[in-house]
């Protein structure tokens, strides 16, 4: 026996989740297996479709228009523009009120923790009041123990981009004398539960105490932005209370890893999978494959040392890129470790990168090439397996950090691969 389903999705990041939903919507019985937690926990929680073109032009105003112009081989071109729409629609359905941006095709400009402005297609509702393209005098509030967000510097940077409103920044001590390296989850938990904290010789609920500290600096500002630690399970409530006490709208500034908006998104999407009835098994990697006549018959999971077979009719590879461990490299070359799919790369290691850190590196585009049905192809452009598709950052041919297309490619190719696979069973 094996653990048996119609479609098996390998990898539990944005791409894997989108694939599972896509296949499920075609009526297939779907299982998603993922080894570890995905890069969502490290990503900002912003859903970028395309911020800059592969040539570096941008910020792109209408990502859909720009996507239609992408060269052959780019994952968006492989999946097709309709898939991009379908992928993002699926995301909107799954996240509902939690995300903003679906009212327009245009990119929004969201201030980041460095005070830069990022073009992005969907952003957490908690970040919405702060978007740079809307007017309103803005105060950034940083916490002295959280050095990743320097509020005055962020305010200066934002002002330097020429926004037509006042920007100020202030650094305060978070109430309750937290340790210097307190975890982001610690702040969120305190605020979620509105725990009592000690301030100036008395104790009071932490939300009240925080608002009191910010109040002195708040006057005149219509919007007040905090680092993204304002609650986890009760984030909306936390923000509403702070806004009420401060008499201004309150927003979160997306932060670097580890990222609460990323965590909240991951939680929401897994909850969604649960709601629609996708089966999920996490904690064990898929390590091997058994094939029959060019088709995958079953794959093998490693359950803490035990080999456990998983069987399906269709398989989707969504194991991530170099960070997620879907693509690996050693001195000999670059490879895809689960199915050993072909990963084109220069034979000489010294051709993998350029000299300057920000040059156009070959390795940034390393990944699995696919045909227009999203099947990985070998060196002769033939599908590796009839019943295998690939999606997300395991794909080659694009450079998501410089294009700002990470989440968009995962959603589009994931959902499309899922639909195609689900349709075949």
């Amino acid at each position, binding site marked *: *026996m*094996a*653990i048996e389903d119609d479609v098996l999705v390998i990898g539990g990041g944005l791409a894997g989740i989108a694939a599972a939903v896509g296949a499920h919507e075609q009526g297939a019985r779907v299982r998603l297996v993922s080894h*570890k*937690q995905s*890069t969502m*926990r*490290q990503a900002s929680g912003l859903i970028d479709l395309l911020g800059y073109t592969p040539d570096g032009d941008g910020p792109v105003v209408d990502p859909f228009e720009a996507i239609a112009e992408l060269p052959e081989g780019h994952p968006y071109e492989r999946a097709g523009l309709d898939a991009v729409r379908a992928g993002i629609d699926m995301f909107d359905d799954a996240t509902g009120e939690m995300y903003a941006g679906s009212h327009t095709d245009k990119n929004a400009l969201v201030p980041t923790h460095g005070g830069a402005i990022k073009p992005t297609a969907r952003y957490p509702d908690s970040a919405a009041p702060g978007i740079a393209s809307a007017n309103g005098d803005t105060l950034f509030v940083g916490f002295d123990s959280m050095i990743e967000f320097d509020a005055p510097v962020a305010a200066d940077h934002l002002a330097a981009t020429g926004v037509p409103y006042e920007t100020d920044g202030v650094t305060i001590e978070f109430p*309750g004398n*937290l*340790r210097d*390296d*307190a*975890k*982001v*989850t*610690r702040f*969120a*938990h305190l605020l979620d539960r509105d725990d009592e904290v000690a301030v100036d010789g008395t104790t009071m609920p932490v939300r009240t105490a925080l608002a009191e500290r910010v109040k002195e600096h708040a006057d005149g500002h219509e919007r007040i932005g905090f680092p993204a630690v304002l609650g986890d*399970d009760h984030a909306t409530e936390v923000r509403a209370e702070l806004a009420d006490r401060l008499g201004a709208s309150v927003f979160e500034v997306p932060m670097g*890893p*580890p990222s609460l908006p990323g*965590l909240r998104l991951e939680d929401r999407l897994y909850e969604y999978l*649960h709601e629609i009835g996708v*089966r*999920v*098994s*996490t*904690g*064990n990697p898929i390590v091997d494959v058994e094939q029959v006549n060019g088709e995958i018959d079953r794959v093998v*999971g490693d*359950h*803490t*040392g*035990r080999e*456990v*077979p998983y069987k399906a009719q269709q398989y989707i590879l969504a194991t991530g890129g170099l*960070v*997620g*461990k879907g693509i690996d490299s050693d001195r000999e070359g670059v490879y895809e470790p689960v199915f050993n799919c072909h990963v084109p790369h220069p034979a000489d290691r010294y051709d993998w990168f350029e000299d300057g850190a920000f040059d156009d590196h070959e390795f940034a585009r390393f990944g699995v090439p696919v045909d227009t049905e999203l099947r990985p192809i070998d060196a002769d452009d033939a599908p590796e397996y009839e019943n295998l598709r690939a999606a997300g950052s395991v794909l080659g041919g694009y450079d998501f950090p410089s294009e700002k297309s990470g989440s968009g490619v995962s959603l589009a190719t994931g959902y499309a691969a899922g639909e195609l696979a689900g349709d075949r069973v």
Partner: protein
Amino acid sequence: MSDSQQPSDFEPVDVFAETDGMDLRPGSDDCYKCSTCDTNCPVAEVDDDFPGPKFQGPEQWRLKRKDDYDIDDSITDCSNCLRCDTSCPSEVPLSQMHNTARSQYVDNQMSKLSVEYIRNRILSNYRTSAYLASLFPRTATFVMNFGPVRWVMEKGLGIPSERDFPEFATTTFRQWWKQRGGAQVQNPDKRVAYFHGCYSNYNTPEVAKALVHVYEELGYEIMVPEQKCSGTPMFANGMLSDARRHAETNVESLTAAIEDGADIIASCTSCSLALRQEYPELFDIDGIEDVSNHTYDALEYLRIYEDLEAELEGAKVDFPDLAYHAPCHSRNQGLDGQALELIENIDGVMAEDVGDSCSGISGTYGWKTEHYEVSMEIGEEMFEHMEHAEGDVGMTECPTCAMQMEHGTGYEIKHPLEVLEAALVSEE
């Protein structure tokens, strides 16, 4: 680059000189400081004094290279839930680092005369206490929960008086097994060796009996080899030499069972985790890899080797609706979804997931006065979800999670094997 930094100068160092020689430094180097582990740590989320797994694991190992660095005493505040281990995308061996560091701390920095040490030894040698208690189960249950005795335990030993000691069974599983004459099914082709662990032997033999009934119904021959504690509470308290003694017995008798053609199954997910993962990480005992490679969780095993869906087709059960909590140690083995999937197939019973938070008790952790409140604060989210769930009976695979669920909500707690028993096994 100065000469001393030349790669050719690289010399492997034994970080903890006194240990059995596992150098975990390469594991430290794998850490790219993404902090995913920190966002998963239930203790760091509620306890401001706890620096978190990234510090406990890779950073402490790096610091340890300097001679004058003692293990930070925050290691005793880690509950050993192993959530960090499950989450690390870079295969940093966090559990191994914690367990080894904790044992170093206990060996070199903790007074053997301190109340904590004595208490931790008593708690981690639960099997001995349980054995003694099982000789007079009713008296023991009464005495352990008797007010004045509890007062002495709290003041003298740091065992929180809020906790109720588990009831001891009047007949242990092993006594029952012997009385019924051992295995009722003989089958050289389908043989399993049951690692029941201490808790289902002394406290919840109904779980162990459910396993026997289900497996026999499906045609398995069950062996119940000699066994000691799996070691889980000992790892968590840094008592590695105690754990090793128990492990030696277990490995010896389980290897013998494997030679007789059996796979090993456990009904407690901390026991299966210990045999599978922690044993080979911590000890070098003949046959230990073999044991690790043949061990399964009892439900997992049936899901792999039986067509449970077909077996359960048409089964009718009368079972209350359940609020299910997946234990951290099942999560670590990738088993957190299995109980719910199984129950989906059974008509007449519904199980609802109460969320992915940790229960907070983590074995002996919540049994210490200094951790009681943290333990309850971690559990709060689970208690709330349980109260919101439809069912008024809880379900989990882990005996200490079950204690915490009961303690926080007053619910009765079942094991998934008991549901399976109700669905598959006809009344005798």
